[in-house]
């Protein structure tokens, strides 16, 4: 935090780490306004999560205290450190180090809970899906580094890459970004990652991991800005993800899964903002999202802690017994849906304004139709978000209680204080977007050339109220109103019943998991089995076959040599005759 206050301009320092045949890898650190803000958000959320975890794991589920707190805390710290490394890194390889260490930590932490049989599978899926994206990330870094002759980000940005190289590299990088930030089609790991302990979900969803992808794009923004193809792919990806996540969130019964899908959708807003050429809006939404999503997860953790289940069908009516949690969740959900004046409203408005600007004026790096796509998707997303946020609130805190426990209560202080502390930025962070040092930090943030400071955003602030702001507000009211009306009609029923036949499809997120299983996992295992069989039968078979053939040949020759005297004598004579003949012939020719 002190860093943030004292920081005036970008600071950079680096030392050569290693030289590999003319390619320099540096141990470099670069700090600018955006990096400092994200770093502060990361550490703030991590602090809240660590505090919360001491209570959540130690006192834990009552039947079995957790004995593995020390490695857990160490892994959380490593996770945070890795994210900070990504944030401040001044070198692509160093960034990759943090990037992958985060993947590892998420793997370790998701698998932490030994009582959940699905946890190891979910952890493995998280690591593998992001690793598949990282194949692209590594190749993209390799292309850029080789082209620039150095992996230092400043050198890479300054170097004039050819258009082909740049497009290829940016598209490859996007694969990695999609993996880490859970963008379609590599988003499947995130909802399953809910098998991890709730504070970990808060950490992964709010400050680390998913934020890394968005941040990496802003860090390399001038490269992406110069490649419209990459922006188009990013924009389509963002729009699909945004709607997919929001729709999938409507039909979940597990409270953590609702929040997980909402993260997928909100990251879609951020990548959408990037696609229409507004990194400041993306970073602003990233920061507010970090605050309200961490709040929501920790509050949900308090609910789960009190009720002993994650299923909303077994909650309900918790408003009176858990007032603190209720109010905090209300703030969080309000910010998520974008209710003014909570933080989410302002930042989402920034994203919408950027998309609208591109759509109507078409003067950004992205084509106008992309602006329309992102804008419309984002507007629909607002209504759907409002709908599922209202549903979550109603199902959990209103109506008659459906929990078997006699007396749910607010969590103990060690759980309560982090939640309350996070409620403050979740409510108020949006106001910081008014002109002032905060937005200046974000503006200066992305390492763009001085002439390329996004002209979509007026330099005097991130927030500008125009009449179009009424449009998302109206949609918000419609979404929330529909959910409320559904609930009014029947207070015991799930508003999701209104989805009708779509509900199972949405609950399984358009069955993309099955698609992934059929298209990727099953063929790979089949090929693996085939490779093993081939290797053992054919490659090794040839070797053992050679040995066996040699032995058979030897035995055959041996049998041939075991002859009775007359035949042997005849053979010796024949041999002598042959040799004599050969000698005569050679002598004759010589």
């Amino acid at each position, binding site marked *: 935090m002190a860093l943030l206050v004292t920081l005036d301009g970008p600071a950079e320092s680096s030392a050569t*780490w*290693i*030289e*590999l*045949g*003319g*390619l320099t890898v540096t141990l470099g650190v670069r700090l600018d306004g955006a990096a400092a803000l994200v770093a502060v958000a990361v550490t703030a959320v991590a602090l809240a999560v660590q505090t919360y975890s001491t209570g959540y794991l130690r006192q834990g589920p009552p039947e079995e205290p957790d004995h*593995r707190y020390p*490695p857990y805390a160490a892994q959380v710290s490593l996770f945070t450190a890795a994210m900070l490394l990504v944030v401040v890194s001044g070198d692509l*390889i160093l960034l*990759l*180090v943090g*990037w*992958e*260490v985060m993947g*590892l930590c998420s*793997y*370790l932490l998701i*698998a932490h809970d*030994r009582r959940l*049989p699905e*946890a*190891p*599978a979910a952890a*493995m899926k998280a*690591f*593998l899906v992001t*690793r*598949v994206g*990282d*194949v692209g990330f*590594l*190749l993209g870094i*390799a*292309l850029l*580094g*080789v082209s620039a002759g150095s992996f230092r980000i400043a050198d890479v940005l300054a170097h004039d890459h050819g258009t082909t190289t740049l497009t290829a590299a940016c598209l490859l990088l996007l694969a990695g970004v999609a993996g880490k930030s859970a963008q379609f089609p590599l988003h499947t790991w995130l909802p399953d990652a809910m098998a991890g302990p709730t504070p970990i979900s808060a950490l992964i969803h709010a400050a680390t991991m998913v934020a890394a992808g968005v941040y990496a794009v802003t860090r390399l923004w001038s490269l992406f800005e110069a490649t419209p193809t990459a922006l188009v792919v990013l924009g389509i990806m963002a729009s699909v993800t945004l709607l997919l996540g929001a729709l999938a969130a409507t039909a979940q019964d597990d409270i953590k899964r609702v929040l997980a899908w909402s993260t997928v959708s909100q990251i879609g807003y951020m990548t959408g903002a990037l696609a229409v050429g507004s990194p400041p809006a993306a970073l602003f939404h990233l920061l507010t999202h970090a605050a309200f999503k961490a709040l929501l997860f920790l509050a949900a953790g308090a609910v789960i802690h009190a009720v002993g289940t994650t299923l909303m069908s077994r909650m309900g009516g918790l408003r009176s017994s858990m007032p603190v949690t209720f109010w905090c969740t209300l703030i969080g959900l309000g910010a998520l849906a974008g209710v003014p004046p909570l933080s989410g409203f302002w930042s989402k408005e920034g994203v919408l304004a950027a998309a609208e600007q591109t759509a109507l004026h078409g003067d950004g790096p992205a084509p106008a139709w992309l602006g329309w796509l992102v804008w419309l998707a984002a507007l629909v997303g607002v209504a759907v978000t409002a709908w599922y946020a209202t549903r979550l609130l109603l199902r959990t805190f209103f109506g008659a209680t459906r929990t078997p426990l006699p007396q749910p209560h607010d969590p103990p202080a060690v759980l309560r204080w982090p939640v309350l502390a996070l409620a403050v930025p979740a409510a108020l962070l949006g106001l910081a977007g008014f002109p002032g040092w905060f937005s200046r930090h974000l503006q200066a943030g992305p390492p763009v050339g001085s002439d390329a400071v996004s002209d979509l955003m007026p330099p005097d602030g991130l927030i500008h109220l125009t009449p179009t702001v009424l449009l998302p507000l109206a949609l918000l009211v419609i979404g929330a109103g529909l959910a409320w009306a559904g609930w009014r009609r029947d207070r015991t029923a799930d508003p999701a019943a209104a989805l009708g036949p779509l509900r199972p499809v949405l609950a399984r997120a358009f069955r993309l998991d099955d698609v992934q299983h059929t298209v990727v996992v099953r063929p*790979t*295992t089949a*090929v*693996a*089995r085939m*490779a*093993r069989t081939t*290797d053992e039968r054919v*490659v*090794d078979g040839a*070797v*053992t076959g050679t*040995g066996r053939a040699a032995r058979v040949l030897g035995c055959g020759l041996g049998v041939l040599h075991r002859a009775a005297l007359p035949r042997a004598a005849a053979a010796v004579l024949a041999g002598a005759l042959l040799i004599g003949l050969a000698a005569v012939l050679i002598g004759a020719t010589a």
Partner: protein
Amino acid sequence: MGTVAAALTLVAAVALLGGRAAGWSAYAPPDAAGAVRPWHAVDLPWVPGLDLRFHLGVDGISWPLVVLTALLTLLCCGYSLWRVPGGGSGRALVALLLVVEVGILGTFLALDLVLFFLFFEVVLLPMYAIIVGWGGDGTDPVSLDARRRAGRKFALYTLFGSVLLLVGVYVVVAAAGTADIVTLTGGAELSRATQLAAFTLLALAFAVKSPLWPLHSWLPDAHTQAPTVGSVLLAGVLLKMGTYGLIRVALGVTPEGARWAAPVLGVLAVAAILIGSLVCLAQTELKRLIAYSSVGHMGFVLLGVATLTATGIQAALIGNVAHGIITGLLFFLAGAIKDRIHTGALTELSGLRETAPRLSGLLAFAAVASLGLPGLAGFWGEAFAVVAAVESGGALWTTLAVLAAIGGALTAAYLLRMLRRVTHGEPTPVVAALGPGLARAELVAWVPLVLLALAVGLAPTLVLGVAEAPVDALVGVVAR
């Protein structure tokens, strides 16, 4: 006694670095154009009648491998003091390990082709004896037969490679009239046809040892049947004789042949990466899985060599060392698991983290290092082999880079599958009977490897700092 000898060797090996400054200046006067400039060298006439010389020397390419060999042998000897696998006496085992060490060190140090070949061969028979004498699991006839078969396959297969090496060496020696590697490097005196023939022979020989797909099938059996210390030495340093030979002898002596064959080598290396990973993905036995993973990892090393760029060869060198450290550790751990519960079948292993958290934590560390996590040793070799392939440019190498990177994802897949099977889940009955403790000898053997995996990962200059100048010199003659 033997262990003390191994320790002294390690001290001597590390001390080789000490005199480097003097050695460097002594052997590299500004006008000396040789591509191999050893820091220290011993050059004595040996068999004057056959014009053989006893010429040893160490430089930046061989030094990390020499230290690695000395270290791993020391750890293996120390480990054997604590636990002697059934089948023979511990003293004999340590003696054989030391003979193997002599052979390997000699191979890394030799600067005379014939001497190189002789040391290359010294390793073979003691290793055969270690596999047959102390290997396997149990003394019943079936397992006895299995390890005899594995030992025989190892000896005969690599002997086949050695025959090719002998022919290759004499093709070179006959054509050039000298066997001195220092003079030969650069291949100036050899005609193109000789170089192509010699490179083919040498590369085949080293491909068997490395092993390069499809000449790898001796490896899984030998690793699976060998005792723990045998597997560690086999995977840790024996395979490196192949890649070292490829860099020092095949590339240095016949550069034109190397340029000619590089695409084939690259394709085979990537095939090794992909097929090795896929086979691992369908593997059901712990030690066999780790053995096959060596095929994939050595594929990355060979890909680095095949690019013939400075980046690629440096990646190959650090990949070599990293693989020695990490796979050595993995085999130690797999051996510890097998010693405890007498099975390596993945179906019978589960829930290790519940009963033996330390062992399972170390296994997870080793697996994560092996899958090339940035910040640990395995990363540099694999990532920069890919970078080097991208750097080479062109459709072929770019495709190879993409395929190799996909191989990297498959590597993660099979190692995580292994971890999930072995460490997570409910403990099986055999695992449930495990105690959490680790013997002190085990810790003493493992901790240096863990620390090295971290140190090399965080400061790759440890290995590459000394290798930079010799590699540049080598690439200078190869890429001419």
